């Protein structure tokens, strides 16, 4: 259920957390009733960590990431610097919160308590934001590119949100 992201672990000698640690932070969002899963995106839209059912693979989340980034860029073109975006679908919501070093995306049902989700997302953002920023500034070593925790089979192993191998 809760897996690491497509991003590889931080190189040795740095304090940047791996995707597993980020994924663990995301798991706290499940305390809010109605939360189905969440994932972290880098500013480029790459998948950094995930806590989402395997039915949504990393490649799909990478595609989602690119579009979420373009969504944000589109808002910027009309003078909006988005901090929070809530998308409502027929039976779900996608909560996207801009955080330091990327974006936190949470998939929920429509009956989720938005105040509780906002609070939980704020706490998670506070926790993972700096870690995510550090992760983004650290270079992955060559030998470590595909050693990160994957959410699925080798076919879905990712690097910077892109399938590899």
């Amino acid at each position, binding site marked *: 259920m809760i897996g690491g992201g497509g991003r590889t672990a931080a190189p040795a000698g740095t304090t940047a957390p791996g995707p597993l640690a980020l994924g663990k932070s995301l798991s706290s969002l499940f305390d809010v009733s109605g939360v189905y899963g969440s994932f972290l995106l880098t500013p480029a839209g790459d998948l950094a960590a995930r806590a989402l059912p395997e*039915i*949504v693979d990393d490649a*799909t989340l990478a*595609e*989602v990431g690119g*579009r*979420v980034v*373009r*969504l944000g860029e*589109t*808002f910027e*073109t*009309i003078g*909006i*610097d*988005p*901090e*929070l*975006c*809530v*998308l*409502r*679908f*027929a*039976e*779900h*919501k*996608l909560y996207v919160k801009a955080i330091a070093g990327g974006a936190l995306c949470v*998939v929920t049902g*429509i009956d989720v308590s*938005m105040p509780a989700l906002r609070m939980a997302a704020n706490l998670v953002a506070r926790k993972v934001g700096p870690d995510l920023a550090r992760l983004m500034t650290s270079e992955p070593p060559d030998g470590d590119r595909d050693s990160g925790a994957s959410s699925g089979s080798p076919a879905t192993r990712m690097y910077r949100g892109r399938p590899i191998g």
Partner: protein
Amino acid sequence: MASEASKSWALSPDSVAEPRGFSAAIDGGSLWDAVQAEHDGWGRTVVRVQGDDGTTGLLFLDAGRIVHAQSAAAEGEAAALELLACDSGVLEACDVPWPRVRTISKAPEMLLLLLRAATSREGGRVSNLVAFPGRPMPALDAMVDMTAEPAHAHPMEEPFGLVFDDDHDWEKEVTKPAGPTFETFESLPAMKEPRGHAARTETEEELSLPVSAHLAPDGTVLEATDHDFADAVAYIGRLSSLVGELLGLDEFRALECASKEERIFVYTDEDGGLVAGRLPASVEASPFRERLGL
């Protein structure tokens, strides 16, 4: 409102010979019923209203919807509500220049809801039912004679008592009211299902959200305060649908994007088009969120 017996809409003598003239004689109905009875729901029609109470004006209908209205004292929704409030009088089809800008996006049923709410609140008086935010309407007794010749009336417009003010920024004035108000509509009665539309009824925020862009399902910009904004809204709608499809979240309905300064709401209307509005961050947005399911 007048008694049921006194409500009647009669054929205009002038319009008898016109092929497009109405023959409206509604007993116990409303002006809108009369218009619906004669308008086939397709194409464009302009209806001149001459109410027995002295109200005069024009309703511009396109595909069964009122897209613009003009009375002696107001235009846009304000004028439409003023005209729809008439209990009796004469209707006639007429040929006048089509407005350059669509000033009304609400469905007729929603206008009637507004009308009903206003008349209920005012105990039958409708003089201030068009006091939209930031768009006060002059009192009825301050109405001017529409047939008075304006300084620069077009020769073709004069016979119809209509002069379009090309310099007047309708779009800005009509589509960007100062802010939302909901208290007026808190206890609206249920309306019958709109004719020719799906079961979805228009929501309260559609009454009050300052519409900055309205796009048809095919991407046609129906109204926009800024065409760049309309383009962005079209792309935002597309991206949102794609994100939903990828995640298995079907049918994009709405979104809210918040920054420190303002919020943008985008939602799909009953026709599948997109409507977007901007609100300052200082404006309470909970009613919008609630109605849009956000």
